[in-house]
């Protein structure tokens, strides 16, 4: 991303999000929720890109951090009754922040012991960590255990989703473009060489992990107050994989590509669902119903992954030359 315009883009998106949220009542709720999903996916994918893309680690537990943020913020806002707009938004901001901090803490807890590991080991440990969070949530009676947790307030709106999406993109972009942030790319390129140059790879990896987890927690808070119902099963391995696919499709370490991929992959299931709703397309034989297409989302994801790795490992949207 061209960094010079970053601040303009940031402020522009926040302002646009605010304006759009004023007209939200005129938008078809179905599309409104898709927009929320897109915003949340962007926050998740861009923050995961900091870990998996720029720093070259491989986390398969991003949905676990999202769960921590979602549950934390939901538990906080559930303490409150009906509030006026200002109080509600203030409380919501605090709850989102708390969710992000809780997730960051979780990221620190997993990060410090495990980030000495490399590549595939790290992938399995983060996966295992995500599963541990899910199992713990399933056993915590205070948050409804396996029955799930109702979130009282539906405070997520276009302002929050797109504003925070823009903030995530801005923070990640400024971080990797700063002098300090070159360390992430150094760790990505060659850990041993980076270490020899006086960069502490573990420190950088933990930082990437904590920052990534923080934003995943915020995305979790947005998700909680958009869906208004949380189940531990909703933050499983498959959810993490969806975000990983976004990062890979967009091109690891390519923020614009990852944003495009997040939008595309959020719309794809909706498109498939619509196709599934139609019995048959005109021109196709009537005896071939299309209901099965909706079930094939994960098959399409898997083929995308394999096909991309075989033919275009730099990602679908990597137009310029990749950093060598």
């Amino acid at each position, binding site marked *: 991303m061209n960094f010079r315009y970053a601040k303009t883009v940031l402020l522009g998106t926040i302002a646009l999000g605010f304006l759009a949220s004023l007209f939200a009542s005129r938008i078809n709720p179905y599309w409104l929720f898709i927009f929320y999903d897109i915003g949340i996916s962007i926050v998740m994918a861009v923050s995961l890109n900091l870990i998996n893309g720029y720093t070259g680690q491989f986390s398969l537990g991003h949905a676990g951090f999202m769960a921590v943020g979602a549950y934390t913020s939901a538990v906080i806002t559930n303490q409150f009754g009906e509030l006026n707009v200002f109080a509600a938004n203030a409380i919501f901001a605090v709850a989102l922040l708390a969710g992000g901090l809780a997730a960051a803490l979780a990221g620190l807890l997993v990060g410090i012991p495990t980030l000495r590991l490399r590549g595939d080991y790290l992938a399995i440990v983060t996966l*295992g960590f995500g599963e541990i969070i899910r199992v713990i949530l399933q056993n915590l009676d205070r948050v409804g255990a396996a029955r799930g947790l109702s979130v009282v307030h539906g405070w997520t709106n276009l302002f929050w989703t797109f504003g925070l999406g823009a903030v995530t993109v801005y923070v990640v972009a400024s971080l990797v473009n700063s002098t300090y942030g070159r360390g992430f790319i150094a760790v990505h390129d060659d850990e041993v060489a980076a270490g020899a140059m006086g960069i502490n790879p573990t420190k950088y990896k933990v930082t990437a992990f904590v920052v990534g987890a923080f934003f995943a927690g915020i995305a979790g808070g947005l998700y909680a107050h958009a869906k208004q119902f949380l189940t531990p099963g909703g933050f499983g391995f498959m959810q993490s994989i969806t975000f990983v696919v976004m990062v890979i499709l967009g091109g690891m370490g390519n923020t614009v590509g990852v944003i495009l991929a997040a939008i595309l992959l959020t719309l794809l299931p909706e498109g498939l669902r619509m196709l599934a709703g139609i019995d048959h397309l005109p021109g196709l034989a009537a005896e071939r119903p299309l209901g099965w297409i909706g079930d094939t989302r994960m098959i399409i994801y898997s083929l995308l992954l394999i096909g991309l790795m075989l033919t275009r490992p730099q990602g679908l949207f990597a137009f310029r030359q990749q950093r060598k």
Partner: protein
Amino acid sequence: MNELLQQLINGLALGSILALIALGYTMVYGILRFINFAHGDIFMLGAFAGFYLAPRIATVLPLPSVAGALAVLVISMAVCATLGVLIERLAYRPLRKRPKLTVLITAIGVSLFLEYTGQFVFGAAPKKFPEILPGFAVMHLGHLSFNSNQIVVISVTLLLLLALRFIVLKTRIGMAMRAVSFNPEAAALMGVNPDVIISFTFALGSALAAAAGILWAINYPSIDPLMGILPGLKAFVAAVLGGIGNLPGAALGGIIIGVTETLVSGYLSSTYRDAIAFAILILILLVKPSGLLGKKEVEKV
């Protein structure tokens, strides 16, 4: 005391199955240095191969019977061995020289593909695995009761482990496997074709996973296309626990994980069962990342 022994037997049966799967992970890792994420799904396909084969075999051999069960086991192993070789050929071989992360992502893709194509083809609802073994009466030894299936699981695993040990240590191809795992380039210079050895390794690992699938289905006769995920991950943990790349280590790790998991769900809480393996993984990676029997590797520049 009796209950403890009883739990140990249950754990041993579960552990044997995990050990069989873990061997596939550890063999592939030993040679290619990558985690074959799709291995747990080969285990699932083994169970489904048995499910679809059983009615056909029943037309030739009586089922349930020992001969029939053996036929189901052997043919499922052959089917999965072929599949394993095919997957390596189509998905992993073109990536042999690429970064490890690329191969890992491909393996995750293959795993998802098998799971969700499985859901599409076999249906998402769990299926009841047919009875292929005559269930003889539960045996009593003092206060202990042995389920006949548990004895079958443990003894078949033992036989397969001995067979694997024989192949790896006493045959020419086994020697070639060890050579490729030690140093692929040097082995190639000595006239070993690494491609053949890698295919053979995948065939061997997949056959063991298929056997594990059938044994699992005999013991817990409800099978579904996502059944491979958790046992696969736990078996991977078992391989790491024993020291990845180390065959006796994988078997040992499998037994330890199986027994611990059974004991925890028996004495503490069954709802935390699925988290045990991962807790063990994090612990072992903190304390001794090379595993119980593994050798420490230093990364050279």
